[in-house]
């Protein structure tokens, strides 16, 4: 039996039956059910491998069902690098339970002891005979009706034939040939293409819409509810052009505009809610004062700043919706089909069971992008155009200007070095707006209020006040408490509300800024102590797995040691959330004549526990590095009082092919060890490794992101 007292994974506590996770039809085809969605991080590949491994079936006979409310287990959001530890563990235990159960049935059917049976590709055979029965024959396609045994014996790692070894390519083929259908591609005959007509900025309200100028729009229909305005047409391009026409016919009340006070100043000067963080957990207690500066040794202080940054998904968000007067069906690339369903039901005033949300492929989202908002937009249009299938797409400008960004942050650090050059005191204060804006149901219609369109409806629901997240290594304080064995530490989380831009969860949440700050500061301290940065870190690091990845990355990069002329090398390390994958990053960089940082080489060394899909893991680690490097070198969302000014790829550039360095990745495999989520492990270390490399190359210590040519020139002149 499984209950909350034996939670090998929270997913099993909610969904204890094997049929919640695995079904086998009469032909032996296996379907894995998961509440986790594939957002390009290949979770479905990893789950298929795990199921095939434990069941002893061919990988090709396993498919992972597309999650849909009502049939998929409710696993909340696909976020926080939790999928392998939640769904992965649940599927492994369910598959092992199913295999054991079917072998027992086979033994009875074949009249032999279970120990005489072997299983190959879903066929149970009496050893050294040709008497056999298949999984399909045993189940007959019927549910098994048994509970997942959380203590079932799973395969020992040395018996694995697929986990860590197989290189599945099935999913990639459709992407490379164009056959894979994304939500954007789900138009059918009769589908209406829809677009939203956006206000100039968050606070604008529709004053008037000159209906007379819309008469010539032909088959374009205009949907209006309060200040929410959308258009729909059987022809997609006519819908695109209609947006411009309708926008020209609209007048908006635009005062007040967006606040343009320097956000870094507001972060440290505005009213805030503060918590001491102990062992990664914020406490509702007074924040302790900093200790007085000691007489001997040295005290260093530094402030690091990270601007608003965006997910910048390559595909603008989209959703398909259909309302027949009874049930609203929505196809979405949201990371949480159940939370979204609850929030949609609230806005639409429908019972939850009359809202069906099905996952459909989107482009990579890297957190809470516009997916959920687009789902509501599509549902609103579908409700108005009852009986029609509506495929609503955001424009590039919509995505850049309206997605929920990652919060701007300030990190203040102080450390004392004793006479031996060791850290005797460490203080880390992080100032940030929330990282929680997902449409999670809560008091005061919180889920509805977090969907963008809600605030514009005639029956408006405004965004709720952000509440501090007091969970272990959650949003703002994620990785604020470093893994180093500092004897005295003071970690403080400051939640600063009501800052100008709409924010939510983006890959790593607060960890990116916290690791950038702490790992830059470690180099500053090493410099002050006159010690090599690798040796300085190892001196304060006890965890052997942390030491191993750090040493491996440094060694491959040739650190310590001289860099080629004009270049510098930087190193950084973190264990994501102090509990997920360990990752060390080393970078070799230079600064060119135009003050641009050039990345020449990068080395990643990571330990993610037991490796399931090696190539998938490598892709996650390298992708996290590249995205982190892009944030670090280029990215800042800008605005003025009239709205967001980062509205396309020119005003918000990201890293391009000619800027991405060669990346070497070392993976430390730990067969039999727990899976450690890896999708967010390298982005924070990437930032600090780059900043440290820039310092090594130029002597310039840059503490405000991004490290773009303006920042380099400012630092060089000061």
């Amino acid at each position, binding site marked *: 039996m499984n209950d909350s007292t034996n939670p090998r994974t929270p997913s099993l506590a909610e969904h204890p039956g094997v049929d919640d996770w695995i079904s086998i039809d009469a032909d032996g085809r296996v379907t894995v059910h998961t509440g986790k969605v594939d*957002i*390009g*991080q*290949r979770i479905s590949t990893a789950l298929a491998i795990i199921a095939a491994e434990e069941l002893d079936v061919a990988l090709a006979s396993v498919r992972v069902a597309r999650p849909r409310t009502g049939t998929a287990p409710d696993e909340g959001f696909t976020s926080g690098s939790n999928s392998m530890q939640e769904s992965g563990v649940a599927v492994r235990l369910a598959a092992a339970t199913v295999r054991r159960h079917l072998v027992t049935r086979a033994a009875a059917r074949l009249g032999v002891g279970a120990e005489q049976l072997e299983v190959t590709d879903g066929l149970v055979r009496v050893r050294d005979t040709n008497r056999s029965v298949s999984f399909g024959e045993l189940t007959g396609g019927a549910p098994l009706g048994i509970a997942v045994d959380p203590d079932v014996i799973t395969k020992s790692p040395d018996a694995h034939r697929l986990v860590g070894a197989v*290189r599945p*390519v099935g999913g*990639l*083929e*459709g*992407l*490379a*040939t*164009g*056959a*894979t*259908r*994304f939500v*954007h*591609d789900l*138009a059918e005959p009769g589908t209406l293409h829809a677009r939203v007509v956006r206000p100039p900025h968050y606070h604008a309200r529709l004053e008037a819409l000159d209906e007379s100028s819309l008469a010539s729009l032909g088959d374009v229909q205009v949907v209006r509810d309060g200040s929410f305005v959308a258009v729909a047409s059987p*022809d*997609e*391009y*006519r819908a*695109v052009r209609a947006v411009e026409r309708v926008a020209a016919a609209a007048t908006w009340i635009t005062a007040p505009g967006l606040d343009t006070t320097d956000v870094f100043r507001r972060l440290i000067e505005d009213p805030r809610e503060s918590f001491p963080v102990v062992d990664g957990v914020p406490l509702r207690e007074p924040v302790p004062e900093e200790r007085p500066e000691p007489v001997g040794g040295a005290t260093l202080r530094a402030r690091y700043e990270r601007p608003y940054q965006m997910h*910048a*998904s*390559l*595909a*603008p968000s989209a959703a398909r919706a259909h309302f027949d007067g009874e049930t609203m069906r929505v196809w979405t690339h949201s990371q949480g089909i159940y939370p979204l369903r609850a929030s949609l039901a609230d806005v639409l005033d429908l019972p939850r069971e009359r809202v069906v949300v099905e996952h459909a*492929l*989107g*482009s*990579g989202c*890297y957190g809470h992008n516009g997916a959920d908002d687009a789902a509501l937009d599509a549902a609103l249009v579908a409700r108005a155009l009852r009986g029609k299938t509506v495929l609503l797409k955001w*424009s*590039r400008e919509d995505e850049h200007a309206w997605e929920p960004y990652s919060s701007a942050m300030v990190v203040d650090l102080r450390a004392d070095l004793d006479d031996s050059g060791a850290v005797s005191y460490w203080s880390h204060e992080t100032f940030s707006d929330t990282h929680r804006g997902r449409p999670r149901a809560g008091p005061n219609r919180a889920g509805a209020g977090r969907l963008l369109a809600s605030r514009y409806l005639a029956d408006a629901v405004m965004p709720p006040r952000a509440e501090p997240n007091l969970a272990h290594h959650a949003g703002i304080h994620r990785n604020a408490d470093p893994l180093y064995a500092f004897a005295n530490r003071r970690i403080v989380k400051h939640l600063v509300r009501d800052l100008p831009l709409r924010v939510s969860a983006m890959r790593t949440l607060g960890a990116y800024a916290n690791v950038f700050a702490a790992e830059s500061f470690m180099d500053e301290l090493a410099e002050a102590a006159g010690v090599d940065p690798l040796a300085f870190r190892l001196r304060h690091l006890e965890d052997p797995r942390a030491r191993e990845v750090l040493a491996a990355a440094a060694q491959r990069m040739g650190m310590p040691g001289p860099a080629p002329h004009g270049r510098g090398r930087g190193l950084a390390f973190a264990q994501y959330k102090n509990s997920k994958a360990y990752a060390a990053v080393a970078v070799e960089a230079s600064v060119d004549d135009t003050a641009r940082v050039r990345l020449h080489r990068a080395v990643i060394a990571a330990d993610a526990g037991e490796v399931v899909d090696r*190539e*998938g893991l*490598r*892709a996650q680690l*390298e*992708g*996290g*590095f*590249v*995205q982190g490097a*892009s944030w670090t070198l280029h990215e800042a969302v800008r605005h003025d009082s009239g709205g967001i000014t980062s509205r*396309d*790829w*020119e005003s918000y550039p*990201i890293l*391009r*092919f*000619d800027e*991405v360095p*060669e*990346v070497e990745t070392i993976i430390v495999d730990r067969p039999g060890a727990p899976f450690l989520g890896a999708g967010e492990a390298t982005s924070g270390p990437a930032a600090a490794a780059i900043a440290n490399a820039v310092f090594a190359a130029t002597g310039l210590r840059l503490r405000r992101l991004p490290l773009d040519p303006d920042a380099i020139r400012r630092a060089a002149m000061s």
Partner: protein
Amino acid sequence: MSELRLQVNGRERTVDVDPATPLAYVLRNQLGLTGVKVGCGLEQCGACAVLVDGESVHTCVAPAGQFAGRSIVTVEGLVENGEPGPVQRAFVEAGAAQCGYCTPGLVVAVTALLARVPDPDDTAIRTALSPHLCRCGSHAQVMAAVRALVSGTRSGRVGG
């Protein structure tokens, strides 16, 4: 609306469409070639690239009418006898996609590059791919895919 004749993936196609409609919309909506992705509608990201007379061309802005009489090949047209073509196969083997939204445009760009320069060095590859954005960070695997194609061409394993 008017009749527009296009030569797409080796076939003559006639579509009834406003010729001002950008080619990407026509390929996707009139001809069902949804491998052509629209990422920006601003010719900034490369997801919509197709081969036009062998060159990689962005199609999310330029009116379809401009392409009459020219040879258009989309990512679907690079499939050979139902199997992925050499560039597509190289991407699969190198694991050169995460979400895959940028992949069709990259496959097209690499095809155009190798037709023009059968033996490009890293700088030439990076230059040719720089008009294409990838947000997942699959750049290293994409480079590996192209290098594998180039070394295959050198050893005569893959036709150039």
